[in-house]
């Protein structure tokens, strides 16, 4: 009797039963377990772990009519079976190509998902064919995704502070993952860089979202560092050389407005962008990256802060 066979039999019995079964019930009805005692306990614990890591949901309830109380196990069919998405053959083939074209780094989970959906169809491209893109998925992204699916709050530590968040949205942009939602700690909508989450993300199983996301969300645009922060919003005027204007316009995005510079502000045909900033440090860093091709015009305190920063570098020993 192989372990695989025992696990298959265990799954079948747990799925078939209509009442919770105790460990002893299972030992008697599933072939391949050792006699009662510590070695059975160990084998049974390992099997339960194996089922859980596979994503097979074990439901635990008291075995009825037994005293003293005993834990009973079963797999609820509604927890186990995949709802059929009704994929047509061409759609399944397209999904298969997508998992080849976009390689999720270090993971075979996309492939396993395809197995469950009906396998890797037809004369598929051989596995050796090159991917077009690679996509890293940080470990913290998965529990956040789970919470979004189940509309539950999550808890994690960020910059040394525990946050409780109604996670609404995951986005991957410029090579990084972000999560946004309603921050219950701050009572406001917030964005977090997932790579900066400290430690684990806990899904709060008994805590549904406290607030629903607004009905329409702006989609399709990558947020920049200065749009992800908690400073009170200010509008910064940034003067740039004309040959940078097109490229910068793309980077600054639609929330920044643009006008020609006046003759007092700068050389003719340079451009002034007005940028909404909620993270002044990130914006300073961005402006410094422009070197001498950009200049903060105002507000005065932002300009003064930048000058002070640069003078410290200029005068450093």
């Amino acid at each position, binding site marked *: 009797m192989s372990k695989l066979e025992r696990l298959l039999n265990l799954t079948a019995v747990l*799925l078939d039963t209509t009442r919770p079964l105790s460990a002893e019930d299972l030992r008697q009805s599933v072939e391949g377990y050792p006699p009662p005692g510590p070695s059975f306990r160990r084998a049974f614990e390992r099997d339960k772990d194996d089922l859980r*890591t596979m994503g097979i949901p074990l439901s635990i309830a008291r075995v009825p009519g037994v005293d003293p109380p005993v834990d009973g196990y079963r797999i609820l069919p509604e927890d186990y079976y995949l709802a059929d998405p009704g994929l047509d053959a061409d759609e399944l083939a397209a999904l298969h190509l997508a998992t080849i074209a976009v390689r999720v780094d270090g993971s075979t989970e*996309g492939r396993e998902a395809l197995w*469950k959906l009906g396998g890797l169809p037809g004369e598929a491209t051989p596995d050796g064919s090159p991917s077009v893109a690679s996509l890293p*998925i940080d470990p913290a992204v998965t529990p956040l995704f789970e919470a979004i699916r189940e509309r539950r709050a999550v808890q994690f530590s960020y910059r040394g502070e525990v946050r409780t968040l109604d996670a609404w949205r995951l986005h991957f942009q*410029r090579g990084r993952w972000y999560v946004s939602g309603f921050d219950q700690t701050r009572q406001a909508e917030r964005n977090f860089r997932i790579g900066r989450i400290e430690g684990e993300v806990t899904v709060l199983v008994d805590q549904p979202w406290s607030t629903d996301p607004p009905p329409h969300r702006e989609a399709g645009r990558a947020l920049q560092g200065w749009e992800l922060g908690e400073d009170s919003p200010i509008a910064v005027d940034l003067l740039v050389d004309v040959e940078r204007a097109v490229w910068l316009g793309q980077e600054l995005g639609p929330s920044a407005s643009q006008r020609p510079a006046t003759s007092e502000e700068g050389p003719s045909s340079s451009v002034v962008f007005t940028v909404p900033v909620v993270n002044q440090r990130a914006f300073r860093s961005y402006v410094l990256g422009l*070197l001498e091709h950009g200049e903060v015009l105002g507000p005065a305190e932002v300009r003064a802060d930048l000058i002070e920063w640069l003078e410290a570098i200029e005068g450093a020993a």
Partner: protein
Amino acid sequence: MAVPAPAADRLRRVLAMVPWIVANPGIEVAAVANRFGLTEADVLDDLNVVWMVGLPPYTPDALVEVAIEDDKVWIHYADFFSRPLKLTAGQGLALLAATDGLLSVPGTELDGPLARALAKLAGVLGVEPDVNLEVDLGAAEGPTLAALQRSVDAATDVIIDYYSYGRDERTTRRVSPWRVNATGGAWYLEGFCHSAEGERLFRIDRIEDLRPTDDPSEHRPDDSGLDVRVFHPRAEDPKVTLWLAPEAQWVIETYPTESVKPRSDGSSEATLVITADAWFERLLLRLGPQVRILAADDEQAANLGRSAAARVLERYRR
């Protein structure tokens, strides 16, 4: 002989394979193998276990029946395994993220089978694409991406006007294009640069103008596989040793270093090669008080931060 897969992995596989065979009675063993990326021997091994499975009292009528005839397979009495197992959060995420990412590539058919599959999958998983999950593989102009891909396929050279951010300069280069790919949230062209006489990576969103040619590419990638790096130090590039404050340790993770000496207070000393002045100037300006130059190969390198700060300040003092 292949190492046998651990029991949990095989269980995963069997629980996916059985429902499909139940739904496709009389399917060829070879087709099963092909569909699940296995050898026929693996499939037969797995099926061998399946026909021992059943419910108590394990009398023949309570066991799964597997029939194999003329290399075709039927499975009966496997009601409890007739439908596949739910996707785990990780599996759902991997599949949705790859699909959503591919749909973000300029030029992908937005109402084709992939988009339909994404909508159906997201429905089953209980999320709304773009609202709950959005994957953007990188900014690139659709026509540029498509034109580059055509030149890669045809193995013909392209001429590009390229803005090198690291050197803060524009150049026109002839490139034999090898591959287009997205990594770390940006699209890159890999190829042989005739100006640099070597393999190079180019950010596609910094290609300001692209002119395909009909000239066959003389330089092809060798069979050893591509190993194109962004970082190309030359022997004459100066080296600097920096003190980096604890909050500036990202520098070590982000850029190649020659050596790193951590200090007990969380700061460190790191030696780096300056491959481009503009790159190093930006680094110094951004880090401000979080960096100090401890040693430098040449005077000019040691003064890059001060001179860049002075140049920028000139604008502010007009």
